[in-house]
């Protein structure tokens, strides 16, 4: 008997008797006998000490920030996660609870989500945030769907090639059956100005990432204005750490602000679980996908939180719902709420400042190396592009031997950027790490 199961053999017999059957197989007679009780060819069961050993072996066969200096970003960033964040996530009152459908016994989760929504509004300047999406990419796909639902007769979404390649792929995959056209990134070298030429009276939304995939920050105000002039919605895919210092979706006049929330207190976790942030304006609140928590009262007038505006959701509206989303990333939203509360105004600005200055120091140092060139795409936040004297994959192999995980090989996604490395630097890369990275690159010319 597994140590997770409490029913003893004696209790089992008693229960079978109460049910009125002789043995447990009698409960499975509805199943076709030819396929009933198939053998499961699985590895032999392991005890806890044995599984620990096995897990440790797999963990030890994987590099990461525990073994190497990290200069790889490209959508997942090595920011500081305070110990207090994980201590709250480990409270079983949070992690072993379900979706708060019963508000009388779920006030903890509901209040945490309400505070997350409020903190996201404070960060972005937007009116409303939902309770989360799976990640930044799916938040963008939901933004596209929402824009089409708001502007009924328009079915074109304009994006730019400087949006994360994974996000562009995800948007295309998820919208394949929706009759929505996604355009703008056909030419991998198209500028934002060129992309905006595609905006017309069929366009439901323009979706621009800033800082973009290359790390470059764009002044989006004119682009948002031009989008609105064409009658379309503007979506700013932002970076939550950059927002501590730089333009918010509200500042630029966006209708929707989305982001990958991983930098807000969530570890790298080999790509997930992360957090899809979705914010918008008050007037679109009935068009949002996903869960939203609101404030109300109970019958005794005590203040209480509850999931609200539920008529948008799949369990009620079925095939007419705004999305099929059910389970979201609630625990990751809690992580972000705890992180933001710990950081506060000063802490978040300090993280953003350290990141910015470390990244610029690294760019300056690399720019002085013979054979390397930092490409000037305009102002950047934590990432920049370096043209290298050798293939990036080859450099990264050598860097790994020096204890460094090097930057992203842009040639994988952009044919014209062979030998270009996307370097990410955060507050976690201190000066000595950066100097070691720079000197290692110098030695690899």
């Amino acid at each position, binding site marked *: *008997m597994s140590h997770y199961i409490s029913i003893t053999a004696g209790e089992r017999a008693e229960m079978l008797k109460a049910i009125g059957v002789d043995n447990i197989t009698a409960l499975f007679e509805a199943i076709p006998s030819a396929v009933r009780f198939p053998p499961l060819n699985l590895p032999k069961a392991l005890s806890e000490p044995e599984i620990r050993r096995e897990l440790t072996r797999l963990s030890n066969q994987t590099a990461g920030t525990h073994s190497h200096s990290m200069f790889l970003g490209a959508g997942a960033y090595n920011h500081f996660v305070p110990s207090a964040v994980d201590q*709250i996530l480990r409270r079983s009152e949070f992690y072993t*609870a379900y979706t708060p459908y019963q508000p009388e016994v779920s006030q903890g*989760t509901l209040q945490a989500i309400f505070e997350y929504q409020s903190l996201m509004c404070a960060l972005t300047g937007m009116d409303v945030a939902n309770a989360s999406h799976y990640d930044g990419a799916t938040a963008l796909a939901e933004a596209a769907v929402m824009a089409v639902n708001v502007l009924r007769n328009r079915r074109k979404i304009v994006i730019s090639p400087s949006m994360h390649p994974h996000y562009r792929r995800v948007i295309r995959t998820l919208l394949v059956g929706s009759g929505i056209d996604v355009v703008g990134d056909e030419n991998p070298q198209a500028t934002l100005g060129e992309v905006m030429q595609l905006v017309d009276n069929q366009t439901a939304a323009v979706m621009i990432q800033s800082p973009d995939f290359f790390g470059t920050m764009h002044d989006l105000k004119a682009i948002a204005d031009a989008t609105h002039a064409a009658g379309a919605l503007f979506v700013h895919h932002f970076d939550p750490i950059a927002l501590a210092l730089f333009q918010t979706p509200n500042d630029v006049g966006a209708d929707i602000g989305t982001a990958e929330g991983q930098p807000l207190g969530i570890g790298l976790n080999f790509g997930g679980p992360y957090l899809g942030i979705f914010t918008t304006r008050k007037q679109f609140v009935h068009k949002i996908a996903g869960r939203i928590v609101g404030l109300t009262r109970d019958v005794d007038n005590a203040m209480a939180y509850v999931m*609200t505006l539920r008529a948008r959701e799949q369990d009620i509206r079925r095939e007419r719902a705004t999305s099929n989303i059910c389970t979201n990333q609630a625990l*990751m939203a809690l992580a972000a709420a705890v992180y933001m509360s710990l950081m506060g105004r000063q802490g978040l600005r300090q993280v953003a400042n350290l990141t910015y*200055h470390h990244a610029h120091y690294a760019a300056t140092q690399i720019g002085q190396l013979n054979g390397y060139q930092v490409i000037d795409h305009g102002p950047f936040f934590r990432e920049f592009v370096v043209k290298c004297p050798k293939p990036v994959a080859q450099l990264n192999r050598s860097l790994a031997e020096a204890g460094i995980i090097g930057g992203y090989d842009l040639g994988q996604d952009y044919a014209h950027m062979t030998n270009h490395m996307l370097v990410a630097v955060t507050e976690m890369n201190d000066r000595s790490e950066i100097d070691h990275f720079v000197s290692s690159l110098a030695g690899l010319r």
Partner: protein
Amino acid sequence: MNNSYEPPIFELAAPGRIGVSLPECDVPTTALPAHLLRSDELNELPELSETEVIRHFTRISQRNMCIDTTMYPLGSCTMKYNPKIHEEAARMPGFANAHPLQPAYLSQGVLRLMYELQRDLGEISGFDAVSLQPAAGAQGELTGILVFKAYHADRGDHARTEILVPDAAHGTNPATAAMVGYKVVEVKSDERGNVDIADLKTKISPRTAGMMLTNPNTVGLFEEQIEEVCALVHAAGGLMYGDGANFNAILGIVKPGQVGFDFMHYNLHKTFTTPHGGGGPGSGAVGCTAALAPFLPAPYAAKVGDSYDWQAPAKSIGQVKAFWGNFGMLVRAWTYIRMLGGFGLREVSETAVLNANYIQAQLRDYYPVAVDRFCMHETVLKGQIAGASGVRTVDIAKRLIDYGIHPPTVYFPLIVPEALMIEPTETESKFNMDRFIAVMRTIAAEAQQDEEILHQAPTKGVVRRVDEVRAARQPVLRYTKEVFAAFYAEPGHHTV
């Protein structure tokens, strides 16, 4: 649970506090581009010490019921015990600190884990290929229906525009089919809780792209004519989608791939006990037949010689989320399968089904059973108590709170009036189930004696019944000082 009001974190803050310790800047600084600065200085963010943040979130955590404190028989959600080793496992350095885009030669341990989980999930369900990428069950469904669309298109079969969905289905099924542009055609259930074969025959046509079916179904019953249903859909050229929400009933009991399903999703956060987290993260891994494997999301973990690497299926639908899936959940599911093995998994399902039938047998004389036959891992009762016509399922659910038990799923499936869907799972003890049974019988007696007791419930929750209409009519979706002050000024609120 903690019954004291806890103010929003914004009200605990004061300017000048900080809850983290960060390094000084150790590099020369660079001027910020003035034209790109944000228009304020982040003034709305609260400022607190670490002590205050921990106390606040700890206090609100105590305003939740959870599996670790309470029986949580929420049907369709499989609220089983979440093993503690899983939490240790997911936080091991190689799993928590690995970057998703680091080279495969630095990621052999995590790729091997993913490869083995793909293999083991395929074995448990009888499928040839598995993708771990979808983030949740609903995304697994979307992946499946996108794969169906791609499969038909690849064969030049463009006439299929409809997806069949039983009237008892989860709302995610029709919502998913609609997202992919399919017309949803509803199929009736018969009086034994199965798909109504006669109705199915009238709904199947050359337009049928496929059918989405949960089995065991949402009434907690195994579809007695499952092979015939699959054969009918296949004969019309359609594909069978299996919603794996109820997979906890059939581990080692039957493999969906062997009864005719072409594709299914696994809710790793249900069957494989990765924690629900208050609503997520989940993981909606998917499995399918060899015929559909070329269309799965890209990439998957492959074994190449003695090492592991990424590969893409030949005709992949593409990527459904950034990176590779909710990897932290995959570590937990891998650990669970490896610790239980084949025998342990069968024991999980046998015990889950035993427990549900025990509760059904003990409550059948107090609450009508939706369909009178052995159930699988959950039993669906009706909240219709003889001699208490003014009592509804919601009243019974709320009264359970007063006895310290989380309510079951209510009003689902939609085809059962006043549904109470009870899923004890295999990890519930007989002691707790006997208490639950006694409480349910007591509630029936209370209802017959004085319906008001139930209408007034809960009185021992953290709050009493909440005004959902007010929440929707005057939405307050974020903290503002003014709105909270107005609430405080209304009569009846106690801040201390």
